[in-house]
């Protein structure tokens, strides 16, 4: 009698990151190698719980003997690779990417990008003082989350989370071309009329707050969203027996947002409508004063 166990294969590769050798498991990416080497790398469309789609190009690095720059988030590390993360070419490319995004979208609620803007000297307004915008009203179609297209950088994360990286609902995808390209429901249906099941996993992965929980949107509208004061407590959802870990974001002794940790084996950061939005019974309606 034998028991089949899961195979545990740990072979490694060694690559050079800015002159320092780094050893990582086979199959790991250059981004993993950079992280291990202590090199901070900007990312926008990358998330550890989604398949890389190489949309934003801000994480590019220079690999010796490679004609083009390569996106570190998806490029698998190979034995002996020699990687530069801070060459003139890399810095220039990252700066351009950040400038183009800043000139076409509202990055005001993506504070994680600001240090990189500064570091690479990105000046979006050199393409014109008035940044180009979609100039659409924020779509508020229900009480759970809103869509602000001016903030969307088309990183595809929401599409991935809605699709085969997690939810398998496929309610949204890319539509249109050029500057008119946008994430849309089928035939641009309103969310309640679309296939959307309101898991909110798209909102959770959005890097720029283009998708935003309604509670956050309402509190921001009255200038009362105080993220720096919020506590985050990890607990377990009560709506079924799966045991999804929740992070309760609390401001003024009131839950204002619920997320799930990306690094937990049960959820990988994803939740369903009940876990994500079903907490309001714990407290009276949130005051937006």
């Amino acid at each position, binding site marked *: *009698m*034998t*028991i*089949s*166990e*899961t195979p545990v294969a740990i072979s490694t590769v060694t690559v050079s990151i800015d002159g320092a050798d780094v050893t990582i498991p086979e199959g790991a990416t250059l981004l993993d190698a950079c992280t291990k080497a202590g090199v901070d790398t900007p990312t926008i469309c990358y998330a550890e719980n989604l398949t890389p789609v190489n949309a934003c190009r801000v994480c590019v690095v220079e690999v010796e003997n490679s004609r083009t720059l390569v996106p570190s988030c998806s490029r698998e590390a190979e034995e002996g690779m020699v990687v530069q993360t801070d060459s003139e070419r890399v810095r220039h490319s990252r700066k351009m990417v950040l400038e183009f995004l800043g000139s076409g979208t509202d990055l005001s609620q993506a504070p994680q990008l600001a240090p990189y803007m500064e570091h690479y000297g990105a000046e979006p307004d050199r393409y014109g003082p008035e940044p180009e915008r979609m100039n659409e009203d924020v779509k508020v*179609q*229900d*009480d*759970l989350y809103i869509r602000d297209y001016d903030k969307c950088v088309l990183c595809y994360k929401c599409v991935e989370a809605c699709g*085969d990286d*997690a*939810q*398998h609902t496929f309610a949204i995808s890319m539509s249109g071309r050029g500057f008119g390209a946008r994430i849309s429901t089928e035939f641009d249906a309103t*969310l*309640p009329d679309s296939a*959307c*099941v*309101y*898991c909110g996993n798209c909102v959770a992965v959005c890097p720029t707050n283009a998708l935003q929980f309604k509670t956050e949107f309402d509190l921001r509208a009255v200038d009362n969203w105080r993220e720096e004061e919020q*506590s985050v*407590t*990890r*607990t*377990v*959802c*009560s*709506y*079924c*027996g*799966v*045991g*999804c*870990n*929740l992070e*309760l974001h*609390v401001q003024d*002794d*009131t*839950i204002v947002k619920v997320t799930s940790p990306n*690094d*937990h*084996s*049960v*959820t*990988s950061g*994803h*939740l*369903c*409508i*009940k*876990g994500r*939005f*079903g*907490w*309001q*019974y*714990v*407290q009276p309606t949130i005051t937006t004063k």
Partner: protein
Amino acid sequence: MFGAGGGTVSYKEIEETDVVLLWGSNAREAHPIFFHHLMTGLDNGARMYAVDPRRTSSSKFADLWLGLELGSDVALANTVARHIIQTGLTNDEFIAHSTEGFEAFKESVEPYTLEVGSQITGLPADAIAEMAEAYATAETAQILWTLGITEHHNAVDNVLSLCNLALLTGHIGRWGSGLVPLRGQNNVQGGGDMGALPNKLPGFQNVTDPEHRAKFEAVYGVEIPAEDGIHLTLMFEAMERGEITAAYVIGENPADSEADINHARKLLEGLDLLVVQDIFMTRTAELADVVLPASVGWAESEGTVTSSERRVQRVRAAVTPPGEAKHDQDILGEIARRMGYDWGHPTSEDLWEELRGLSPMHGGMTYERLEAEGGLQWPCPDLDHPGSPFLHGWLWEDDLGGRGPAPFSPVVHAGPKEELTEQFPIRLTTGRSLDSYNTGVQSGGYDSPIRYGEALDVNPADADRLDIEEGEWVLVSSPRGSVEMPIRIQPDIPVGLTFTTFHFPELVDINQLTNDAWDKRSGTAEFKAAAIRIEKLTSA
């Protein structure tokens, strides 16, 4: 059959399994994040067979949907078993080494030919054969179920019939293969683990075992009654006989959730004393003599819960309970104190430490480890033990880990208790929808854009025959009561069957209709099968 009660595999394993039988479970809506793991398995090439009278949203992801006649699960399982035996696809080495009673079992399924099975279940013989062969020939395979299996008068037989399939094929006790009852609430598993069962002490130790009792008595300092207690369904029967005259209800809403609800309410109203400890003024609390306001378990209290994969995890207080609401353990402590037992003020970790000393399967789970390791799966007997992803590996050990072989359990088909009659010719079954939960006490607190309220799902052909339209309010009656509710025409519901959720008792008091016939062994009522009729309301 195997000892302790719990799902035998981890969620991770379904991502790597080859064949999935999703049997009486709509996990897509009732366990959505588990379904993510299942979808990863399908993306990795697993085949899925969905067994459910309804064409549920889960079954739409299956390779094959087996829309069996409601309540014919044992007949289907026995037919599958016979076909596996007939085609020589049994795991003979496993049967010989790890099981007992095969010959008697073989004989018991002999009547369930594909023809007979097909007749009872209403399924094509080919479909049954295909599922049987896929399951038996898979390298790894899992059977998942929920209340579609257990909310029947023959619930235990239903479960045993599925366990038999695992024993025939050896799909148990190794990575990727197993039996998975998905739990409906965040601590159903933990409640059982902690001894909230009439015949168990914490850690599935037996009340009737003097050694087990002595261990607890030494720590608790009181004598523990030597006889098993009784479960909820028997408690209601004891109320009826006047033997139970007082009840203390903690975090449960039986005045909305019990089957044949009018009857249950009458019994609760007739008690001399009803104490309800809850976070809300539920319908049960409204009937109570004393209401003790409690705090929310997962957001206002410290403690642990245990999931469907036996993972013990920490819950933590993030916000302050309102008004005079208190932690459950503090309320119980106060009551004990006034009854003359001063427990002091133990923290939840103090209580957990006591439990660790009493329940061997939790022995290695300190709060520190639970926090550092993202929870641990029992059994985890000591501090060096990594926890157990799957159970029953002993079945594959040469000496069976010193245990006896696992027995086959011959079971026979018995359809729903309540037969269809001329007066009540239509089947009613109940279940959950994605955005709501149980009697709606919690999920009623948020505004879901996809909520449609309560409605009776009927097939278009039945709607035609009854001359009823989408959204029309009708009178729905069972032998126990009548309610008015709107119609939702659904092609996914078979002819002759109707379905509704039970999330909105204020709107539609659906448990006036459901049947409280129950399984003597599990104590579970047959929520899943009542007989009803549908009548038009007199035209306005």
